[in-house]
């Protein structure tokens, strides 16, 4: 483990534990302003989306590939539909991966 990793993991652990323990330490004596409580609910979907979209649409890290030759896009669309219809995480991952692999194979076979 390189030094950088020790600092990184230590920092992540410290930040995460501090957040989790913060309110136990304060024992519920302070209250969040209501706007902040509402804002925090958007954190997970907003952050995750900000990671998903470039990974799917800019898979090479260079240009946007918004067409059928991009298996990441096809896999993501399938995962989106499966997750929406089934609300089953495991099924979403399995079918999304299968669609991605299948499409990658098809594109390689045809083009």
């Amino acid at each position, binding site marked *: 483990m390189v030094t950088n990793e020790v600092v990184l993991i230590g920092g992540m*652990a410290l*930040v995460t534990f501090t*957040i989790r323990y913060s309110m136990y330490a304060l024992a519920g004596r302070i209250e*969040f302003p209501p706007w902040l*409580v509402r804002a*925090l609910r958007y954190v997970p979907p907003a952050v995750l989306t900000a990671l998903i979209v470039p990974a799917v649409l800019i898979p090479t890290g260079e240009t946007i590939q918004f067409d059928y030759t991009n298996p990441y896009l096809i896999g993501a669309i399938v*995962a989106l539909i499966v997750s929406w219809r089934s609300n089953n995480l495991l099924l979403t991952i399995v079918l999304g991966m299968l669609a991605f692999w299948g499409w990658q194979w098809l594109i390689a076979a045809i083009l």
Partner: protein
Amino acid sequence: MSEIALRSSQKTTGSLARTEFWAGARDTIPLIIGAIPFGLIFGTLAAPSGLSFPGALAMSAIVFAGSAQFIALGLLAAGTVWPIIVLTTFVVNVRHALYSATLAPYVKGLPQRWQIPLAFWLTDETFVLVANHYSRSGSSPYRHWYYFGSAIFMYLNWQLCTFLGVTIGRLMPNATAWGLDFAMPVTFIGLVVPYLKGRPMLVSVIVSSLVALIAFPLPNQLGLMLAALAGISAGLIAETRQKEKAE
């Protein structure tokens, strides 16, 4: 108290605590099954993202925060410097402050030797179960054993799956060619979709997507932070407007 009465009282205490513990463990089983692919994929993605074998195990053991760990891998793979990753971890995990605030009234009477590990083990999954349990089960003094039962199995499962992922990942040296780099976005899609209920959430995600694409060329994953903040603000504004309209 006579010796027999004392012994019998200790036995009752022990069995009540045990009952709570196993109830917590049992209720956590579906969530453990749901977490297995995450742990495996996290372990598998660690090496291709540039995180070492001990680094992956240590991150699961002492950070213990699924989505933050995944995001850290994504950022590492993109060559992000550590202060940005720690800052992103803060942004991603700040929701735990709300969980902590919700459970604080129930755990504040416990000694530090309970509060500290229970805080460390606070996850989305355990939070949902424990908050439900506290809100329904009267005033049993052993409910922290339920929390403990849920948390410890989530934790052990995460360690085991990370280990298996790291070792299986090593058997498949070219995980990227296998398309396992798609496992992270596909897992995140499965996490995001359940949030997409109502107009404000949709607005938030659409704005986040657009800003993420536009701001992608910025250095140090600055685009990610901008996209997240824009998405959060947009959701909040949409929610406020929706409420104003309703009034």
